[in-house]
């Protein structure tokens, strides 16, 4: 790390996503900028409707092109994603970038076996022989700790249990050694004892393969288990970003503070929870200034203007005038 800075895997500048519908325009993402270094794990933490999943999908241009307007600049591996042709994009997805979702049945075609789908993907991207692809598939299932992988190759997605399906999807996402893994709440639908297994597996694979990861979650505990860096999202903006220890130990944005205080943990028993009043903003009618101001107990007239970013340390950014 001491010598020349490595080129970032992802560079996003002022990314904005608007969904236009018949009666309303949803401003889902409103100017997100960040860079992600090789091998770094960034968690985007936010509540429903904060724009976290849309941001992730925007990076891969997975949003419906007719309804979603995408602005800003996105570079992955130094290449401009917004200018890529369909073919180049298809090559990027799968070779350089793998993606996993909350619901593994989205990633798999229900009418083909798991083994066939993994092998097809390897053949499509690397042009190896069918026999070689099969060997790779076995190797991948083994790597994600699926017991008796040869037998599982012949299983259809619905024949696997929830945790196994999630593992198989991770295998599919990793089959071409991506340098970037995009994960959209991959453990949210799982039971507690399975969720922790998948989180530890992802952490281990990330270390082994040196991948950069962007992990979207609404769960503070999950973020703490996996992140190097956390970006807290609210109203379509990153309101605070910083190393996981900074965010947990020294949160500076009132929303981050409120989110941590309202998350129930072992020592909350017997005390009233410090809930954030009100509800998350309506993304069709965002205020021009700070989106959190209507719920913020520190709000003042200056919050009606868009809040600037304050760099508390080179790593810790907060978008709140109180950080001045």
């Amino acid at each position: 790390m001491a010598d020349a800075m490595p080129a970032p895997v992802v560079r996003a500048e002022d990314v904005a996503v608007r969904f236009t519908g018949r009666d309303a325009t949803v401003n889902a993402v409103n100017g997100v900028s960040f860079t992600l270094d090789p091998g770094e794990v960034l968690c985007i933490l936010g509540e429903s409707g904060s724009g976290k999943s849309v941001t992730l999908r925007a990076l891969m241009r997975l949003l419906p092109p007719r309804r979603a307007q995408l602005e800003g600049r996105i570079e992955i591996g130094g290449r401009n994603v917004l200018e890529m042709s369909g073919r180049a994009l298809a090559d990027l997805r799968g070779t350089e970038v793998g993606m996993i979702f909350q619901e593994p049945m989205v990633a798999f075609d229900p009418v083909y076996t798991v083994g066939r789908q993994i092998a097809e993907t390897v053949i499509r991207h690397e042009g190896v022989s069918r026999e070689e692809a099969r060997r790779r598939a076995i190797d991948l299932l083994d790597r994600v700790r699926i017991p008796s992988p040869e037998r599982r190759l012949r299983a259809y997605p619905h024949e696997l249990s929830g945790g196994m399906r999630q593992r198989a999807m991770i295998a599919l996402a990793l089959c071409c050694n991506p340098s970037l893994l995009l994960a959209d709440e991959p453990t949210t639908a799982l039971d507690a004892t399975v969720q922790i297994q998948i989180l530890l597996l992802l952490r281990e694979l990330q270390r082994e393969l040196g991948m950069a990861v962007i992990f979207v979650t609404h769960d503070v505990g999950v973020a703490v288990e996996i992140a190097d860096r956390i970006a807290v999202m609210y109203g379509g903006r990153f309101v605070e970003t910083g190393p996981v220890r900074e965010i947990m130990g020294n949160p500076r944005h009132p929303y981050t503070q409120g989110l941590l205080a309202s998350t129930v943990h072992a020592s909350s028993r017997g005390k009233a929870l410090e809930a954030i009043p009100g509800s998350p903003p309506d993304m069709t009618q965002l205020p021009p200034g700070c989106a959190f101001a209507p719920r913020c107990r520190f709000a003042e007239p200056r919050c009606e203007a868009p809040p600037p970013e304050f760099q508390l340390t080179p790593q810790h950014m907060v978008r709140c005038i109180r950080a001045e």
Partner: protein
Amino acid sequence: MSPAADRAGGGGPLLEVRELRKYFPVHGGILNRTVAWVQAVDDIDLAVLPGEVLGIVGESGCGKSTTARLLMHLIRADAGRIDFDGEPVHPDDAAGLRELRRQMQMVFQDSYSSLNPRLPIEDTIMFGPKVHGVSSAEARERARELFSLVGLDPAQFIRRYPHELSGGQRQRVNIARALALEPRLLILDEAVSALDKSVEAQVLNLLLTLRRELGLTYIFISHDLNVVQYMSDRVLVMYLGKVVEIGPTTEIYRRMQHPYTEALLSAMPSMDPDRRTETPPLVGDPPNPIDPPPGCRFHTRCRFAEDVCRRAEPRLGPAAGQDMAGGADHLVACHMRVAGSGHSQAAA
């Protein structure tokens, strides 16, 4: 609005359940015959004391939601006995069931599906009282009181439709709907699980305030162990249709005795970046509740499993350091905790 007085009196349980059982048939084959049974709830016993919050935890398929539906008589039990306020409830006694459902109400996870989308929420809340013979004017008056009680301004909200509310507001309406009949017991089945954390805290605070002000009793079902710890006086842990451990919240969270409870608790993500989880407490997924393992149902995933665990089913008994005669309130179903069970870790 105060709940009816305790008929049973003398500190008896408000709700008592013995050997409750529900198996669901699995159909298959060309004749669509029953080929297997899901043992969703298998001979469970539990008691809920007046004024307490009993938490029920467990993973998907453990039978916690089926238990809730059995208690409400939304589905029919195969066997077992349910006493409410000291009186047995008969599943064929329609008038008795109607009275039971007045005293016992349920709030579900999906705030949307339990409200009629075509009715203003006021009408939904008035519906229950009107069915139970309250006049329209009185029901309307009560609806307004309930809106204020759950923190929604009646003037602003009462004529709205469910789709015009946020998730947290809808769940407040559901709580108001459940309270409209002045029940004594509320079953909250994952009632805050679909809410965002910042809103979840508001609803949890509301539930605890209502409990204090109205003297309510809750059965609080959740997969979130932090929330259950926060809410409950006692906690019941289920695994594949069985109760594996039950006791006061602090006992369960600090001195748990069942290996499954221990695994479940250590599977909670850490909130401290310097103390991340290093090894998963369990390997693999929970087994299918169709034809569950014989003996102790947890033996296939338990690192302490021995021969006796595969052979014999452990019964729920007093945890170590407690004895039945002393009115043990911490019970566990594990061969390691039964003297002379044949497990090498059990006392002789």
